[in-house]
């Protein structure tokens, strides 16, 4: 494959950026959902999102 380092660096960068944002968003949702469940007085009335 010609110019392999440039192609490999581009793909690696895309995967790292994509994975970082996906994992961050997932962790943030999980943390907020747990926190909300712990303190939300309405948690038995309203279905959790």
């Amino acid at each position, binding site marked *: 494959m010609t110019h392999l380092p440039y*192609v490999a660096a581009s793909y690696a960068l*895309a995967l790292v950026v994509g994975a970082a944002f996906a994992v961050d968003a997932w962790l943030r949702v999980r943390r907020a959902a747990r926190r909300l469940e712990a303190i939300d007085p309405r948690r038995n009335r309203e279905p959790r999102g």
Partner: protein
Amino acid sequence: MSPASGRSLHRFANPGRFLRISGRVLPFLAVPALVLTLGGLAWGLFVAPADYQQGDAMRIIYIHVPAAWLASGGYLGLAICALLSFVWRHPLADLAAVEIGPVGAAFTALCLATGSLWGKPMWGAWWVWDARLTSVLVLFFLYLGHIALVRAFDEPERGYRAGAILALIGVVNLPIIKFSVDWWNTLHQPSTITVTGAPSMHVDMLWPLLVCVLGFSLGFAAVVTARLRAAVMERRIRGLLLAQAQGS
């Protein structure tokens, strides 16, 4: 704008309803996004033919073009949220603008970085100050400015207003990016895929590119939706804690 349509816009501002709907929609964004992105990238890297002139370096297009599309498309989304926030004071649009900013900035950075990695072996330079590259760099700075501005005030509402104004001002940059390669001599080539003509790209390369564009777009939507869900819950947590503190 009639009062009725204003009310229907605000129906989606109900945080409980938003969390219910978005929770149901999210898997249908995230799963296809993952499948299409990974599939499209593998297709482009291993199956699609190399270019007759640029060889394998051209495969960077399968990341560069989707990232560029979302850099501009994400900014358009940011500007629409800014309009809803500034004119209709839509509370969900405020949070959406805050959450779109970092994602759009990351895709713009990815577009610039992959462009650099493509430019060095093909053009012979990592960077040139032509109109296309410069206008995309300005877009990146607009994103950074928005990220900083919406977080710069103690009172969140003032940050939303200031951010909305910046986002709306930055909209003038979008047509400049789009048409820079047609209006001025640039080192960057003109668009391959146009509304009017046949794409000047062989179908064996075009299909994986379209799959990547769709996959990246769904991924962008999924990440923004998830971040917005987190933001809505975080706001509710803050509200509850505040109420508890005042109640006790």
